[in-house]
């Protein structure tokens, strides 16, 4: 095994650990390393981590407990017809997994997360628990101003905890680091689009998810190495179709599901699993005199599409179709968590857009702790069969 391969293996196994570490050991280490450092937990999907970075803190992405935690108390808070993720979050909160966190952010995405912010307030978790109301008005002067003020409230919360004041240069520096992070992630996606076997979807998932719980500098180093590795011709291609997976932006699919999709004959060439880390499509101005406004404007001007964002002037179905085309995908797999209103309400709209453009798709539902993939495998298998067995064989 070459040194390079060894290094990549190490990185990936570190990421696998870190990504699902429900104790957030890496974050705790980071906090302990410096006095005044704060940990701010944020729920899916997107949050500008650079802001917390500039305030001497680490924004820690909290994506649910997956299949790693047995839910007992969490069920006391949620009926059976509500998605699985928030009950995992509550269970973790009650079991002390978040004790190191100084504050919590609940980016607006749906009613469940919104109400969860109130539950954290009642439970008295953290020094603050803020629902971050993203504007649905995409004008800089209206929505942008409102959003900038929301960010300002977060800054004030953090200042109150660690005394750090927002510094223009520091924020610009943080923006630069996060820009680099996004750029490298996107490049990995670009390479995988052509050579999906060079890094499996599961590996990429681990790599990406680790990135939201560790400092950006550390993650940038890893991305750098991984990129270096997959720019070269590694791995062996297989006879599989290429798909884009859409709808799993909040509650995360179990690893077994991602694996089953690839095993049943598909390469995942794009997805919205951890869309937050690629939310801003482009580079945020990192030279600005008012970087807070730059952050706000980036949200208003450069956000990707998602079910949690109002889209009347910019239909997401068309954007999804464009993505599938750009990635040269053979089809789309709509994979949404059960009971997820935003994702499921969008399905008919998105599917219609696909049909109009002759894009083939299938839809499945999961929950983060699903353990049985038989039915899903059969459906995905039939999907890939139906493309493979009839269409011209995929030339590799």
């Amino acid at each position, binding site marked *: 095994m070459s040194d390079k391969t060894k290094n990549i293996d190490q990185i990936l196994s570190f990421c696998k650990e870190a990504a699902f570490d429900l104790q957030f050991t890496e974050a705790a280490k980071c906090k302990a390393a410096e006095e005044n450092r704060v940990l701010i937990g944020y729920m899916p999907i997107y949050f500008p981590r650079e802001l917390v970075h500039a305030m001497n803190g680490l924004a820690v992405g909290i994506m649910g407990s997956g299949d790693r935690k047995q839910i007992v108390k969490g069920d006391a808070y949620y009926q059976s017809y509500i998605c699985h993720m928030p009950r995992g979050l509550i269970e973790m909160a009650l079991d002390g997994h978040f004790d190191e966190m100084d504050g919590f952010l609940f980016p607006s995405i749906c009613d469940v997360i919104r109400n969860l912010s109130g539950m954290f307030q009642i439970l008295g978790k953290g020094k603050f628990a803020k629902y971050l109301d993203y504007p649905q008005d995409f004008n800089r002067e209206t929505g942008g101003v409102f959003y900038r003020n929301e960010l300002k409230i977060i800054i004030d919360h953090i200042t109150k905890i660690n005394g750090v004041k927002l510094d223009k240069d520091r924020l610009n520096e943080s923006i630069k680091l996060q820009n680099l992070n996004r750029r490298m992630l996107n490049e990995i996606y670009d390479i995988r689009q052509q050579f999906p076997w060079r890094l499996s979807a599961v590996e990429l998932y681990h790599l990406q998810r680790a990135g939201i719980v560790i400092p950006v500098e550390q993650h940038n180093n890893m991305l750098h190495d991984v990129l270096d590795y997959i720019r070269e011709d590694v791995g062996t291609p297989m006879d599989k179709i290429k798909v884009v997976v859409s709808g799993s932006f909040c509650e995360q699919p179990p690893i077994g599901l991602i694996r089953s999709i690839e095993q*049943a004959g598909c390469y995942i060439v794009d997805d919205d699993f951890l869309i937050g880390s690629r939310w801003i499509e482009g580079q945020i101005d990192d030279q600005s005199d008012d970087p807070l406004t730059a952050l706000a404007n980036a949200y208003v001007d450069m956000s990707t599409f998602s079910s949690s964002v109002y889209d009347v002037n910019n239909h997401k179905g068309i954007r999804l179709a464009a993505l599938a085309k750009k990635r040269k995908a053979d089809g789309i797999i709509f994979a949404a968590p059960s009971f997820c209103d935003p994702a499921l309400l969008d399905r008919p709209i998105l599917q219609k857009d696909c049909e109009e453009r002759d894009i083939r798709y*299938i839809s499945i*539902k999961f929950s983060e702790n699903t353990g*049985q993939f038989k*039915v899903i*495998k*059969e*459906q995905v*298998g*039939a*999907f890939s*069969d*139906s493309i493979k*067995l*009839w269409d011209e064989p995929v030339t590799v």
Partner: protein
Amino acid sequence: MKQTKYTLGIDVGGSYIKAVLMKYGESPALISKRVEKIRKRNPSQVSDDIINALLKQEGLSIDDLAYLASTGEGEMVKRKTGHFYSMTTHAKGAIFLVPEGKTVVDLGALYVRAIKINNEGRVLNYKMTGQCASGSGQFIENISRYLGLAIEEVGDISLSATTPELPSGICAVLAETDVINMVSRGITTPDIIKGIHLSVANRSVRLLSSLKPESPAVLTGGMALNKGMVQAMVETIADSKIDIEVIAPEDAIYAGAIGAALWGGYRYEKLQKEASAVIA
């Protein structure tokens, strides 16, 4: 090389194992078939026995098979050449049985699948039941067992219903208590049975209706042998204002196995071609 190629398809289901022996070529033909209830036996053992029995019946040996294709839960079949997903095989099998079929509804013991196909049997779209067995054949098996009826006779009994009574819940297991309750209220056996059939049909038609199905729909799977079930499907489809004809072919229960055998033949030829290409 032998002129006629034999392929064998085996469909290991939740409660029955079905196998067919086919002649593969220009116009494939069904030679013989066999179905066996698993009944708490080891399915891979039962599969082996069926395969042997089929071969013996035709005086063949395992080496005479160009391809032994499994489907369903057939990944456990030891001597298989390859495995295909149920949806793919049912689609192919259905079109073999009913060439004009446009839609397939596979009514099995555990799952119901509604599949839209093109004239080559390609899966265009589908819907499938997942985590709840409330619309499955097992449901009917359980209830008929409880009422002391053989699975072969429920169909006719269901046809004689006058005022069917639907079970109040959907659970395939708790419906037993519903049935107890119905019996205690004096509901007749045919009406109960028909109610159960309608409840299963309801769930199946729900899958079907979201597919924008085209006519005719081929029913496959074991429940297609049940005349009461077929009738319940027809009624429910009419109630849902879906305008499609329903065909339940005689060999419906073998559709998966037939599809597997056909795909096996197809793969065999493809592999042969590739091999000869390599040699050339």
